[in-house]
């Protein structure tokens, strides 16, 4: 007699009792990288972008900065600091978590941990400069724009990134770029910021297949 599935298979218990495990980069490991921006270069690029933003928007009126979690957030704050120093005006700065707007739910092994959105100002009618560390496929920015729209109707959205590494998958470009870096897809661009990583800098690392 043919016996339907399920009836006789071992039923291993949900392995919930052995305590937590830590997520790792699935199937991949990172080799040692090569530094492409020093701390000083990061600082100079930030200052230059701050000037560009004010120049391009002809002043600071109606401007706001929104950093994408996580490393976009300290970068946005630094831009706000630099603009305050140059122009004497403190732009509103916020943090945006795009976790719930990602389009790759089916590609990730686990849901990313939510880090939180903090937009302590009304977006309506403002020109919002979205700040992130690296621009790559453009999907993060797409998600960020969707998320922003749920908070209000900005007059315009601009984009500032520290590194543009190419390989766009969507028709998105940055208005302000710290450094254009040609990369291949099997490389990772690592941005370090002092507030999170204890130092500033940018490195390129090569992905290697994990021996697992």
């Amino acid at each position, binding site marked *: 007699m043919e016996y339907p599935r*399920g009836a006789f298979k071992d*039923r291993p218990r*949900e*392995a*919930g*009792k052995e305590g*937590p*495990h*830590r*997520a*790792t*980069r*699935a*199937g*991949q490991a990172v080799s040692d990288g090569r530094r492409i921006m020093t701390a000083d270069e990061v600082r100079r690029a930030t200052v230059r972008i701050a000037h560009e933003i004010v120049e391009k928007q002809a002043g600071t009126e109606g401007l706001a900065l929104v950093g994408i979690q996580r490393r976009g957030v300290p970068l946005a704050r630094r831009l706000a600091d630099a603009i305050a120093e140059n122009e004497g005006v403190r732009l509103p700065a916020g943090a945006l*978590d795009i*976790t*719930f*707007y*990602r*389009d*790759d*739910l*089916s*590609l*990730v*092994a*686990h*849901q*990313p*941990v*939510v880090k*939180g959105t903090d937009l302590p100002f009304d977006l309506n009618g403002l020109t919002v400069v979205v700040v992130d*560390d*690296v*621009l*790559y*496929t*453009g*999907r*993060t920015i797409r*998600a960020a724009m*969707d*998320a922003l729209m*749920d*908070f*209000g109707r900005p007059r315009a959205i601009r984009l500032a990134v520290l590194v543009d*590494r190419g*390989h766009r*998958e969507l028709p998105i470009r940055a208005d302000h770029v710290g450094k254009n870096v040609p990369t291949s*897809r099997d490389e*990772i*661009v*690592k*941005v*370090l910021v002092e507030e999170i*990583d204890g130092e500033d800098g940018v490195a390129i690392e090569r*992905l290697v297949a*994990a021996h*697992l």
Partner: protein
Amino acid sequence: MSDRDPGAEPIVVGADAPAWRHRHLLDVDVLAADEIDLVMRTADAMKGILARPIAKVPALRGRNVTIIFWEASTRTRVSFEVAAKNLSADVVNIAASTSSVTKGESLVDTIRTVQALGAQMLVMRHGTSGAPYLAAEHFDGHVLNGGDGWHAHPTQALLDLYTMRERLPGGSIAGRKVVILGDILHSRVARSNIWSLTAAGADLWLCGPSTLLRGLDRWGGRAAGFPGHGRFTVTSDVDAALRDADVVMALRIQKERMDSGLLPSLREYTARFGLTLDRLAAAKPDALVMHPGPMNEGVEIDPAVVALDRAVIEDQVTNGVAVRMALLYLLAGVHGAEGAHDAA
């Protein structure tokens, strides 16, 4: 530490964050303490979404969440529905009658049918303890238990925990005296709360008439306790239970309990176990009052108690949506067999 353009490379979860790895949520007994923490923090984010002008995010866009309740319930079903819709899921609601069981329509058959109809996440309530385990065995997606028999009601336990953490000073349950008062025997809410509250370090008391505590003392009296879980106290002495309590949760008393001879009358229950202002005076002055609903005001809980500021019954309802959003979101991120990705 990397660019994280989605779709391009795997997500790196912070080294301090536990990853969620349960494909189904059938009970809270399988959740480790840091996994419960993750649910709580994710629910925080969901509450943030609920506070927005547009309380909706596209996280589950295109996902089919099918809600099947074999037992009548409005509040839990609607809570799940709102939660799923806030995450932009497509919601299919099925009111399955228990009579389909007697007609020979098997649970397994129903599960296979809704799967063929495109269900990817299944929220189910069933009158038979353990039914979601059978469903999970035959369903390729995710099963979320919305209550099974007397056995478990994990989302209720987690929303209760969330509400306590939110409202207790210091946000910690450890060492707090939590009293669950009423019909413990028939309560899946109590059973799931036993796991989550003892895991959180609460000083848990279960109180009710002896007929409605049957068998619970054998569980509570475990000397060593279950792994990671402390003991709890089982008593019919309502004054001892309420003395210096930090949280008092009353459970619904159903009329059927008298028909089956477990209680002489509702009047007698109210007189001896009803949560009144007088009785509550024995608890701490700021003790929280909770109730999983639906309430029989005037029976297990006095309307004057419900009216107190520290009665957080409506918070439980609101938090229920946030916690269910969090669970739907977390479950949706786990693919295939449990832990299959761990091979990496």
